[in-house]
């Protein structure tokens, strides 16, 4: 009855875990964000995206990733930031949320960082309420701060309706 635990669900990846955590970093308007590396399926360059009429503004459309339909979400709009500059080509990070694939569109995807739990802090109370909802906490890095994105909440559009 030994079950093989899928990689993405391996225990011990919670934020409170004592060892270090691996994050994929990404940037929007110079701000660094992080997503746990194990939730990331793919990193994509610019893609051909099919617009979806009547969809929420933050949903950029859908795209075909090796035969699977991926819904592209513009994280910039989701976080209430201005529209991207025209020349920004854009990259995206594909995550799996309850069996559905979503592509999170950001300005740029950075390297993977291994961060010790000691550098983790909860959201400062002064953080914008919108950001506070999507942020699971902050990491203090040497030269900048990294906001850990809560992908579940980021993709939970029910509350907005």
């Amino acid at each position, binding site marked *: *009855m030994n079950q093989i635990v899928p990689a993405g669900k391996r225990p011990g990846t919670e934020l409170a875990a004592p060892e270090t955590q691996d994050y994929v970093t990404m940037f929007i308007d110079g701000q660094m964000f992080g997503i746990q590396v194990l939730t990331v399926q793919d990193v994509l360059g610019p893609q*051909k995206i*099919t*617009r*979806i*009429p*009547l*969809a*929420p503004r933050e*949903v950029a*459309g*859908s*795209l*075909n990733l*090796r*035969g*699977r*339909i991926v*819904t592209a*979400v513009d994280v910039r709009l989701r976080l209430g930031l201005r529209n991207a500059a025209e020349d920004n080509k854009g990259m995206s990070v594909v995550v799996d949320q*309850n069996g*559905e694939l*979503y592509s999170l569109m950001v300005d740029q995807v950075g390297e993977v960082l291994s961060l010790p739990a000691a550098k983790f802090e909860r959201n400062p109370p002064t953080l914008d309420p919108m950001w506070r909802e999507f942020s699971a906490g902050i990491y203090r890095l040497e030269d900048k701060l990294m906001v850990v994105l809560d992908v579940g909440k980021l*993709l939970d*559009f029910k509350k907005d*309706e």
Partner: protein
Amino acid sequence: MDDLLSEFLTETSESLSVLDVELVKLEQNPEPSILQNIFRLVHTIKGTCGFLGLPRLEHVAHASENVLGKFRDGELEVTPTAVTLILQAIDRIKLILGHLEQNECEPEGEDKDLIAKLNDMAEGKTPSVAAPAAEQSFPVAADLLAEVEAAYAAGKKAASDTDVLAEMAKERAKEAAAAAKEAAAAAKEAAAAAAPEPEPEPEAAPSVPVPAASPPAVTKQTEQLTNAAGEPKESAVAAQTIRVNVELLENLMTLVSELVLTRNQLLQMVRGRDDSEFTAPLQRLSHITTDLQEGVMKTRMQPIGNAWAKLPRIVRDLSVEMNKKVDLQMLGAETELDRQVLELIKDPLTHMVRNSADHGLEGPEERKRAGKPEIGKVVLNAYHEGGHIIIEISDDGRGLNLDRIKQKAISSGLASESELETMNPQHIYQFIFKAGFSTAEKVTSVSGRGVGMDVVRTNIEKIGGTVELKSQPGKGSSFVIKIPLTLAIVSALIVECAGERFAIPQISVLELVRVTNNSEHGIENINNAPVLRLRDRLLPLVSLKKLLRLNNGEDQETFIVVTQVGTYTFGIIVDRVFDTEEIVVKPVAPILRHISMFSGNTILGDGSVIMILDPNGIAGATGESSMLGGGQSTEGQVVRDLHGDSKTSLLVFRAGSEDLKAVPLALVARLEEIDVKDVEYSHGKPMVQYRGHLMPLVSIDGATDFRSEGRQPVLVFSDRDHTMGLVVEEIVDIVEDRLKVELSASNPGVIGTAVIAGKATTIIDAGYYLPQAFGDWFGRADKEYGTDEHAAPRILLVDDSPFFRNLLTPLLSVAGYDVVAVEGPDRALALREQGHDFDMIISDIEMPGMSGFEFAQAVRAEGRWQTLPMVALSSHATEKDFERGRQVGFNDYVAKFDRDSLLNTIASTLAALKGAA
């Protein structure tokens, strides 16, 4: 081996391995859901082996199911002892199965001991815990030992070795006294010891004369032992087919899609160069890829008939067992279903068909008494509709027993009596979908344990489907399973709007109309609401661009996709129309599910993602949602038919004068040409000998004007043994056209004038000529219909078409009825308010405003006409229409123009009424 048996073996061994695990789980954690699952599995095994004629298996399973049933009802506690007992029963089942696989028959022997224990357990006679635990596992071990001994004996006797036998007996006695664990271990050892035995056997055999059958028997027994002793051998049957995880196929499909895309890219690159050395291998790669893609696609799709293959046998066996006559009709077996869906609905379907045949249908005696044909009908029908796969299971049995469902609902605390009072029957019927709900009076081996309908519902809802249930006391019940197309392949029309492409399910597209400024079709506006004149009708239009708030792009809308949803037909304005494509529909992401305009999305052949429009949603957005109620699926059919056949077949001829005349073809029995020499006269009236009878000849304008010689065309109208010939000059044509009488005439024998095939044509009233030929036509009614005194039965005819009112009124009058014709249900209901009484109502179905179905419901709902017989009259008489008609309260259903059957129906309905009164 019998297909059915081998499938049973495969399935059962799968179920059994699940059972083992589940039972252990249950012991640790007695949750209802686990119990439910176990119960269902055992129930299925029991049910299936009942049909296959495996009494031993069935008895063991039945007894275990009894115990499990007690668990489920909370009458017994789940104790380790009880679970051990069940596990034991399962081991026994495995043992029997092993033998079955080898020999295709059940092994000899009985399971009385085990069954007795199970029954004791079910009755609550739980023996004390410690001792029985040992004792209970013992019989299996003892059995095994006995068999080991037998095997040994048989093997060794041939080699004249009695010592071993004695030793074995001793061993057995010793072991019997020991604890269960040791016994089991010993059995294993013994089995292991016995296993190599067949090898030396052949060597021994030549020296001693042995009966030829002996060695194989030993081998078999030994093998069986090896199995039973817990060294599971790879099942031979299971090895014949490979069960593949659907997820694996899904992955394979993804890979193939990627391969296709890569191939397309490569082709694109090579296309530019003529002399590339890659051309030939690439072509080959391309072919293989296509084949591969098709192959993988095929693995996913299966005709629904596969799930039905077992049903005829099951129904047959059932009918034998229950002594019923059942006719199972299976329609649309070729409808393709996603494999996964198919697997999931297989069991529910089997359950439902079984239920229909077992509970639904009455015995032949009861059927006869109810005036139904002796043979009960169970109809399975599968088809694609409105982007769904619909599976209907209907029977013409007794219908659900409302009172018993009520009782059961009250007794199981699902609803109080007062609550039930306020519910309508159709709602109350839904209780049968609750777990543990069974109204069968006795628990049979077939059904009646309340397993089934709740599982059916759960399974169907798991794949996003719905089950609808309709039941009519005495008329039967029908279940309609609707499975969304999310997993199915559909054909879709690809359209473009504002530079974006969309797919519209082909099934809801009626036609395409191209609109240009100078063509006859142009979009007109009524206060900004676009409409289109389409063949004398106004078609409401929706602009996809506005609907989806797409703004960019020029206004170049040129195509209208005429779409149909339920009864509602409308046009969708799009920019361009591409071709149709077979697509595999995928559900949209959860964050987009609230957009009702889309039913899914898909990936086209070129690799791009495309949204699939949902015609239902679009219709809803245009404010027609109120029309899309529950009866939508049936209504869709009606309307589709209506489109084709508001047309009538008409026989166009010339007679008397030069102008064209026509009569509905259905009224004409035959077309004949008679030789004018054969015309004879009696009392100055022309007639001809025709098929052994005299047939009077009548001409249109009274002035009989036969040709001087040669052959004269005659339209033969026939009614029972009366035949009449209408003499005509020339039969021009048979045309199909919409019959719209525009000018009504005052002269007798003519209904009016209509435009048929582009020409003004006089429509002849055949009913007028019939009495001309026969004097006794009028007097007939009293004799044949046995009406009271001189009061002719009063019939209310409701039909919006003046043509039919004019046609039927004289026809019915001639047949001896007193007819009142009104042009619509509202008028008819007004007559009811005024207190008019009739003996029968004949009503059209398609009428503007209130339809015939609604009219019937209104009549049946209240008032003085509640019990009046009603006959529906319609130009289309498909099985579905009949069903629908019956459900809303029509006693019978007659196709328009079918004069004979109308008269027969009226007569028999009235006669039945009289008989009942």
